[in-house]
């Protein structure tokens, strides 16, 4: 029964080999889907290319459904799955900062690594910026240490927050995803009709 490494079914020694293999698969899918191009990615904000939404939402839904079924079949112990803890106010601030960075930079960290791999200088500068940003954060950490740990809600799940089961959350996600796929497909058709110069 999974998860395999925390249960000791795969020894810890394999951890980094598996990390590398998983990373390769992750990077391959990101690049092959077109995430090594910043203009592809930012298309989601201007309506000319919703590839980010399609890949992202499909992946979330597939993994969510997968985890629920693995749990149902008894293949995985969901209690041993890491649920990212929620720190309400710092997370809100962090996401807003990342949102601005997303539109300015055109990448997120993972996608910038794949863009570097195919020779994009802008991605190298973006990753350099990441390094600098995390360095600045660390240096000035004492000034906002209290804020950083504020609003701790622990490892609360979406279902727990809204008082519904996570199976229902998954179903709602699927419905929203399908609607989003249809609506954005229509928007994209309309926006692209008016664009003559668009080249990925």
């Amino acid at each position, binding site marked *: 029964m999974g998860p395999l490494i925390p249960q000791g079914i795969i020894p810890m020694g394999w951890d980094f080999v598996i990390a590398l293999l998983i990373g390769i698969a992750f990077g391959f899918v990101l690049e*092959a889907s077109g995430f090594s191009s910043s203009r592809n990615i930012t298309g989601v904000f201007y309506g000319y290319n919703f590839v980010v939404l399609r890949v992202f939402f499909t992946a979330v839904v597939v993994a969510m459904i997968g985890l629920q079924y693995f749990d149902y079949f008894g293949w995985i112990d969901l209690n041993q799955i890491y649920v990212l803890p929620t720190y309400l106010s710092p997370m809100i601030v962090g996401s807003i900062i990342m949102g601005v960075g997303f539109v300015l930079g055109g990448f997120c960290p993972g996608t910038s690594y794949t863009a570097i791999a195919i020779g994009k200088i802008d991605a190298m500068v*973006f990753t350099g*910026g990441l390094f600098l940003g995390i360095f600045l954060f660390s240096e000035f950490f004492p000034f906002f240490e209290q804020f950083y740990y504020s609003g701790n809600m622990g490892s*609360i799940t979406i279902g727990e927050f809204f008082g519904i089961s996570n199976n229902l959350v998954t179903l709602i996600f699927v419905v929203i995803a399908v609607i989003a796929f249809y609506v954005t497909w229509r928007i994209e058709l309309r926006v692209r009709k008016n664009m003559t110069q668009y080249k990925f």
Partner: protein
Amino acid sequence: MNQEIVIQDRPKYINPYFGGVLLGLVLLITFYITGRGLGASGAVKSAVVTTVDKVAPEHAEQNTYMKAFITDDHSPMFNWLVFESFGIFIGGLLSGALFGRIKKLRIEKSPNITNKTRLFAAGIGGILFGIGSQFGRGCSSGAALSGSASSSFGGLLVMLLMFGTGYVVAYFFRKLWI
């Protein structure tokens, strides 16, 4: 005008829904094997801590944020996310090679802006993403994607607010892209 030529020039990407299913399966397998999701910004954090620790070890030890990642028995680079992120790079290389997208060094940008503007925006974007990902406990991979998939409320929050903010500010930066 030359729209047809432009469309022919389009690089060949896999179908986004197929890509999404593959990404979802990679994520599911990652949860099944390791009990945790994917990540990307964590590797840069390890690189920052390692660099500061090498250049100014006392300074790193005194920093309340960095010292948590420093141990005596191994380098902060000896970390799951560092190996995984190195894999992301290799995976990008493999896909890029397979689809013929590895070319000489280049800058991708809107024709309406200069290279300098693009690189400046990319640098600032990176800095903001670096700072934001620390407050957000992860970036698009660790918090938004893996967090949401494991039904974390924080993950959903980061996903919605990150993309939501993107839509709010996109208008002001439209020259960068369209």
